[in-house]
């Protein structure tokens, strides 16, 4: 199988609220930067894989609105209805299959334009048994957080420790929700979905990110580059049937990791850092424990992989389906040594873990490695 390289990336950095540009213009800026970064022209790209969900953008068939701003007119196109890391997954398979050599992947979201997002997300629940109860769907995260505490015997202060770490991290890079805070500061926040407090919940941010993937035999490979070693995904229950969950665990993570081991012969746990889309503080702990990272250890970063060096969603915001793209790009920057103030020293490999949506039990895992040309 041919190796797949990440040859370019570009971002419209996350912002709590972008008022000047519309979403296609934001994505155009990200794509322009990605082409520049890769030293490629749009005509070098043969296909586009984008991601998005109709109601997040307020137009049905969001796919219609994807080609022009990324240089994708009259090219191969596929839209994955979910998180952008799922789109990376598809692009990875497209390049590996030999069908195309250079593929662009796009993630974009503008949650600041949705006035009643809770009502939108509620519609991913069961229409007969859940929706008529009228609860805010983020309550499901509260259920999950409570179950995680009960299952593991974790002290709820851990949520504030995770959130403070990520929010402080984002302060180093100018992330929209970055600030200097201590866990004690966060413990004084009120509850939103107990046991989750206000800043244990990621706040919305507008964002666009674009990456270019290429087969190593198709482009001039620089001396040092980043290889996308494996991407796998798994589901463990449908969102409308959330009550079926094995509460307090993210079982899909284990299933996806097992596929990385069995189908790619790689060890996804032997990495220097993990970037993930933790929409809520407990999700970072829940996912970390599936990875075998002891929550107590990873917080101080002394041993084992550093978790969310970029500050994750709690620091950089919830960019809906583009969140996975932000985490992916943050990881590639780490491996290129371009992560600035949050650089993990000597990072050779990293894992990206991304959930399909805030309340889904489906997700995707990608393994990245620094690689000689």
């Amino acid at each position, binding site marked *: 199988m041919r190796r797949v390289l990440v040859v370019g990336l570009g971002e419209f950095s996350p912002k709590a609220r*972008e*008022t*000047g*540009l*519309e979403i*296609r*213009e934001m994505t*155009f800026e990200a*794509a*322009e930067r990605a*082409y520049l970064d890769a030293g490629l*022209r*749009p005509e070098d790209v043969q296909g586009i894989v984008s991601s998005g969900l109709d*109601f997040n953008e*307020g137009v049905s068939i969001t796919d219609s609105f994807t*080609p*022009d*701003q990324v*240089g994708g*007119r009259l090219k191969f196109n596929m839209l994955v209805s979910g998180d952008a890391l799922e789109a990376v997954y598809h692009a990875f398979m497209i390049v590996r299959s030999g069908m195309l050599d250079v593929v662009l992947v796009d993630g974009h979201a*503008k949650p600041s*334009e*949705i*006035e*009643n997002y809770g*009502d*939108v997300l509620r*519609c991913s629940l069961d*229409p*007969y048994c859940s*929706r*008529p109860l*009228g609860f805010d769907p983020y309550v499901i995260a509260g259920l999950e957080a409570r179950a995680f505490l009960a299952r593991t015997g974790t002290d709820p202060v851990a949520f504030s420790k995770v959130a403070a770490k990520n929010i402080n991290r984002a302060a180093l890079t100018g992330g929209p929700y970055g600030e200097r805070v201590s866990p004690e500061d966060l413990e004084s926040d009120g509850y939103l979905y107990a046991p989750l407090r206000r800043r244990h919940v990621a706040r919305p941010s507008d964002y666009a990110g674009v990456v270019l993937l290429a087969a190593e035999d198709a482009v001039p490979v620089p001396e040092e580059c980043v290889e996308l070693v494996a991407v796998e995904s798994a589901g463990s229950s449908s969102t409308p049937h959330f009550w079926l969950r094995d509460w307090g665990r993210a079982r899909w993570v284990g299933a996806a990791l097992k596929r990385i081991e069995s189908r790619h012969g790689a060890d996804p746990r032997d990495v220097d850092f993990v970037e993930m889309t933790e929409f809520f503080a407990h999700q970072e702990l829940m996912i970390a424990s599936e990875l075998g990272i002891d929550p107590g250890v990873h917080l101080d970063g002394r041993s084992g992989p550093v978790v969310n060096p970029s500050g994750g969603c709690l620091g950089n915001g919830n960019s809906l389906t583009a969140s996975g793209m932000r985490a992916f790009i943050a990881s590639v920057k780490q491996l290129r040594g371009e992560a600035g103030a949050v650089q993990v020293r000597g990072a050779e490999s990293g894992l990206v873990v991304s959930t399909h949506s805030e309340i889904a039990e489906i997700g995707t895992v990608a393994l990245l490695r620094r690689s000689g040309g």
Partner: protein
Amino acid sequence: MSARVVRYGPEQLEGLPASFAGFLRRATEEVGSGREQSWSKAVSEFNERVPEMALPGLVVQPWLFDFRYRRATGEAVGRFLEGLKEGRIIGTRCEGCGRVFIPPRSFCELCFRRVRTYVEHSGEGEVATYSVAYIGTNPRERLARPEVVAVIWFEGTKVVRPNSHHVFHAAGLMHKLGEVEPSEVRIGMKVKPVWRPKEQRRGEITDILYFAPVR
């Protein structure tokens, strides 16, 4: 076989937050008892064809979409809408390929570059294609008066491929036609915008009432 639509009456709504109770009440009113009979028929046919999954009856749940968005138009479309308010049609021109975009765009998808040259157009154009609508969004209800819908290609913006009649590009807008009988409309017919009175314009696409033939 029977089908039943769930209805939320005052008893069920008591104690719910007012806005959500209002939402469920509206769902009950607007979706009403629609299609109960057709559903009953559908259940009978299904039970006959797939006996292993036969249903005792069917319950239908009403629900409404009530999603609200507040959208930034971006600079180019923003300037277009501001222009409409003044009765002007604003576009952009790509300095790379020379194509004109009306409504304007801030990037050219072919040259893949930013487009910042604004141009003003008379608004005159030709009918690229048209249709006559006898229905709105519910095909079961006929409109009182049919509407003529058209794509208008603005004059002087057409780029035709040599060796064929294929129009490679034209600055085009979907809108309605007026002051013309449906039977008189032809592809290629010259048209111009008819504006809403100045004081009624609000910087929206409907500031142009319709396009009318140039006589």
